[in-house]
């Protein structure tokens, strides 16, 4: 049996287990076990992947298995992974694992909470392993829809509004996406032959330019909305602000990556010429959103808003790098996805924990937390440093790769865009240090913060997992970037030799 199916099976069993479990304790236990198993298996998968490669299997996709599902539409259940998907799966597994522990204290309707959380994760896993546009789309929507309940029920603030807005905008995105996918499908056999949803097959054929130009925007924006592309990002601040901790973690940490991944895997990889034709528009948009998000973050007062805007900036960087369409930049983009996923998840986890103690997210209402909750504060500082690109943490690796990569373009337009994007590292430093300065350092403003408790074991577990992941990538990036570069090498070459 295809090992990848375990990625779907384990969560499924977990869901069933949770459904059968009695009482919050059991529910927690089951989900923790399940997701730990998932994490473990993700590493096993990585190992298997290397093993397969070392045996000299040079296929683009490994562990490929395909069974015909809808004969007439040529829809298959086709799964397979390459280095990118594997790293993405790792990311997802880690973040989910951390998320489970970060939401350890969910009491109300805990069963439903964990079930929807894990369904979300399942959708993400499925998305990353599927090689068939139809199943991809299926998992995509499956991952998006639980957000509504998760935010709506367990959220805070104007949760109904935010949940509805988020869901509708993302679904609007998938509406565009659907059109794009159908367009690709019906052009997948320009010279006769059988239409197909199969990614790898479509990549081989040459879709007529007119069709590409028409459908590229649908597909790219469709995914881009989830990747917080500039004018379509407004679901993100509200959504994150209202979402419960683990949901923000998963959503910003993993779900938003579906956007970038799809933009590359589907939009650009399948419609290369259009990508080249239209890249400039989106380069402008993304380089705007890089700076725009950062500047937006400077002014915010609410921790989650700050982080949401910084996510806009960072994810903008991801799309930006993808659009540079060379090996280095794209590697950087994937690295940035992973690193952003980890650190933004960490941020949201910490924010949740701080909020759980101080019951406010307004930075100007807090101060001097370093004194009372040193552990969380130190971790927060580490996360901050990671996000402003401190060497030795993941952010630096990703950003540098992106900058070096995007600088390989010699024309002024790309150069200027690159330098604009680079300038974000300063602005990022500004808002990160601002928050750290106001929130953690300085004198304690509020006296009954003095008896706040520091992190409990599950909080420590959750945060340390993420921190160590960040540090490992930051200190020894080579294996990861190698893992990612290896499939890219030929994808990019497919993208560039037209």
């Amino acid at each position, binding site marked *: 049996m295809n090992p990848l199916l375990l990625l779907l099976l384990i969560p499924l069993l977990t869901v069933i287990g949770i459904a059968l479990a009695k009482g919050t304790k059991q529910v927690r236990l089951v989900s923790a076990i399940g997701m730990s198993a998932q994490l473990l298996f993700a590493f096993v998968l990585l190992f298997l992947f290397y093993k397969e490669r070392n045996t000299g299997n040079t296929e683009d996709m490994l562990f490929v298995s395909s069974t015909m599902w809808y004969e007439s539409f040529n829809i298959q259940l086709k799964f397979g992974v390459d280095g990118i998907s594997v790293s993405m799966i790792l990311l997802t597994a880690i973040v989910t694992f951390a998320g489970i522990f970060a939401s350890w204290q969910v009491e109300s309707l805990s069963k439903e909470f964990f079930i929807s959380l894990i369904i979300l994760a399942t959708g993400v896993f499925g998305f990353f392993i599927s090689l068939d546009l139809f199943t991809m789309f299926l998992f995509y929507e499956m991952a998006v829809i639980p957000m509504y309940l998760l935010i709506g029920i367990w959220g805070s603030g104007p949760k109904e509004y935010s949940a509805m807005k988020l869901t509708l905008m993302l679904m609007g995105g998938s509406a565009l996406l659907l059109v794009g996918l159908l367009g690709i499908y019906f052009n997948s056999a320009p010279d006769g032959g059988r239409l197909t949803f199969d990614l790898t097959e479509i990549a081989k054929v040459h879709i007529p330019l007119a069709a590409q130009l028409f459908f590229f925007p649908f597909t790219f924006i469709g995914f881009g909305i989830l990747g917080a592309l500039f004018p379509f990002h407004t*679901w993100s601040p509200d959504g994150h602000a209202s979402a419960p901790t683990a949901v923000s973690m998963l959503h910003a940490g993993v779900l938003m990556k579906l956007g970038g991944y799809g933009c590359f895997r589907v939009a650009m990889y399948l419609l290369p010429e259009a990508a080249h034709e239209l890249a400039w528009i989106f380069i402008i948009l993304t380089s705007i959103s890089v700076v725009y998000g950062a500047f*937006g973050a400077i002014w915010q007062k609410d921790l989650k808003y700050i982080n949401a805007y910084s996510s806009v900036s960072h994810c903008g960087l991801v799309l930006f790098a993808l659009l540079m369409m060379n090996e280095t930049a794209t590697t950087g983009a994937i690295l940035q996805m992973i690193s952003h996923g980890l650190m933004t998840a960490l941020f949201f986890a910490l924010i949740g924990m701080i909020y759980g103690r101080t019951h406010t997210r307004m930075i100007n209402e807090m101060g001097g937390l370093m004194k009372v909750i040193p552990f969380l504060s130190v971790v927060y500082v580490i996360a901050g440093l990671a996000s402003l690109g401190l060497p030795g943490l993941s952010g630096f690796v990703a950003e540098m790769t992106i900058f070096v990569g995007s600088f390989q373009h010699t024309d002024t337009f790309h150069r200027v865009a690159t330098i604009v994007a680079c300038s974000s590292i300063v602005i990022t430093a500004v808002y990160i240090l601002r928050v750290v300065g106001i929130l953690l350092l300085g004198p304690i403003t509020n006296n009954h913060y003095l008896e706040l408790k520091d992190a409990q074991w599950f909080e420590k577990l959750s945060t340390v997992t993420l921190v160590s992941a960040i540090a490992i990538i930051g200190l020894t990036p080579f294996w990861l970037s190698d893992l990612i570069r290896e499939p890219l090498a030929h994808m990019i070459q497919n993208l560039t030799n037209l």
Partner: protein
Amino acid sequence: MDYSYTLLILLLPFLLFLFIGLIGNKMKPQLSGVLGTTGLLVITVLSYFTAFNYFTNKTGEAFKAIEAFQFLWLQFTDKLIIHLGILLDPLSVMMLVVITTVSLMVHIYSMGYMKGEVGFARSYSFLSLFTCSRLGLVLATNIFQMYIFWELVGVSSYLLIGFYYERPSAVAAAKKAFIVTRFADLGFLIGILILSFYTNTFDFNLLTSDDGPAIAQPATAVFMGLSVTTWAMLLIFMGGAGKSAMFPLHIWLPDAMEGPTPVSALIHAATMVVAGVYLVARLFPIYHFTSPDSLNVIMYVGSFTSLFAAIIACTQLDIKRVLAFSTLSQIGYMMVALGVSGYGSEGLGYMASLFHLFTHAFFKALLFLGAGSVIHAVHSNLMTEMGGLKKYMPITHITFLIACLTIAGIPPLSGFFSKDEILVAAFEHNKMVFAVQWLVAGLTAFYMFRLYFNIFWSSNREYHHTPHESPASMTIPLILLAVASIFSGFVPFHDLVTTDGLPLQTEFHAMIAVPSVAIAVVGIIFSAMLYFRKNPKPESIATSLSGIYTFVYHKFYIDEVYLFITHNIIFQFISRPVAWFDRHIVDGTMNLIGNTTVFFSGAIKRMQSGHVQWYIWYFTSGALLLVLLILYLN
């Protein structure tokens, strides 16, 4: 011979950092202090050993650069690869010695100075991190590794300056330091991008070798009138200027005094601020061969900064600030020296600059630590609250005096030799700059002795609790450093550290040396007249040219300008509008779409009027219209 053990020099402090950082607060504070210090002692020994080995057995007549080891860290393209490694050449080895020495002193000193502080362990972990990143910076084999540790230096300085994190001023200062240097680093980064793109390598050896891609075939591309190489080098220098607090990026340095004094010593004397000098020196061949213009820029910036800082230093009252500005002006010296230097046999300036870096490290560290011990005794930074301390703390007094004499350039103390070389080089290259530097020499002597007299002589005021000499852990480093600053001048530097590794012929220029000493003496006398005894003259002078005085006292109001730019321009006029725009325009559009839909649904609700006749009417007329439509479309 095999230098791979040098890996320890990098590894040890990092491990110390992790160890003390993670479990430091669990164990007894003293223990962590001892741990850190011994660790650093080991490193120091190792680096001395290395230096000895390196300088004694040189193959051929020139010193060769040795890559002790390196491993692949990250690969960008098949050409652009980041290695982490250790590069040993005269420059780095010299820096190794300097850094370890000063750091060791500071470590020992801190044991006494920081005694009983809350974050004792924390300070040692940070110090270790700082040392580690600093060493990594100087030992870097390629420019990108340098950038990595460059950033680490920035962060660790952030941590150290913000050591007293409950003090808002400290937090602000740390933030300022980091952001300003970060801004400079942006330039550095872009510079690296440009340089690496056109040379296709990060490696120093390739970059600086005469037949390397940078020098042999420099990029011909031109952007806005300047060759891209010049752009690159200027941007890289911007990075250096940021770290070395050259004008106009100097504003963070004085505030950095918020950190504990030993830290200030570390940052200013040996390590952080001279990084810029080191950077330029490291890339000197490229500067010299491909873009002399940027060398000129460096020269002018350096000379201006030195003058500017010296003038400000004359007015400051906070002793640490005085020292800070003196550092600025000394680094200005070094920059000037690099700017005026030639290559090979003309490489006097280069040599001199690094020589000054070498000597300056010791006496500036000495000055800071001395100041620290004074502050420790008086619990104040302001010289107005001091005076007549010589009888309370003799050791500090003597060592401080030595330091002042050294920096003033009084022979035969080390400062004289290095500064003299610089002046010679300047004289040969550019008379005007020489004049400025000569003047600055006098100013230096003046403000240093202003400081000295104010602290140790002046009025014998009485203190509510009598100050006393600092403990041995603080005085011993003082003494050692004093010795170093006396004798370090006699190191045969021109044989060791030169542009091309070949020994350099230098001769003594009386007609330069004499005037420089003279003006120094004049400065000393002048300040003695003003400050030796408590008298109203200084105030009278200050008041007589009050306008200028306050202007200078407020450091030419440059901080205010920056503050205005950051807070009013960036915060108010960019980020606030952006936030507003996002909430109201972008988000508003999204909501508008929703509201429009709802509006329409309200607008057409009359259709469902509840009157069946209208339903029938809609039905039939709808059918008829459909018929018309289809017939029309056919």
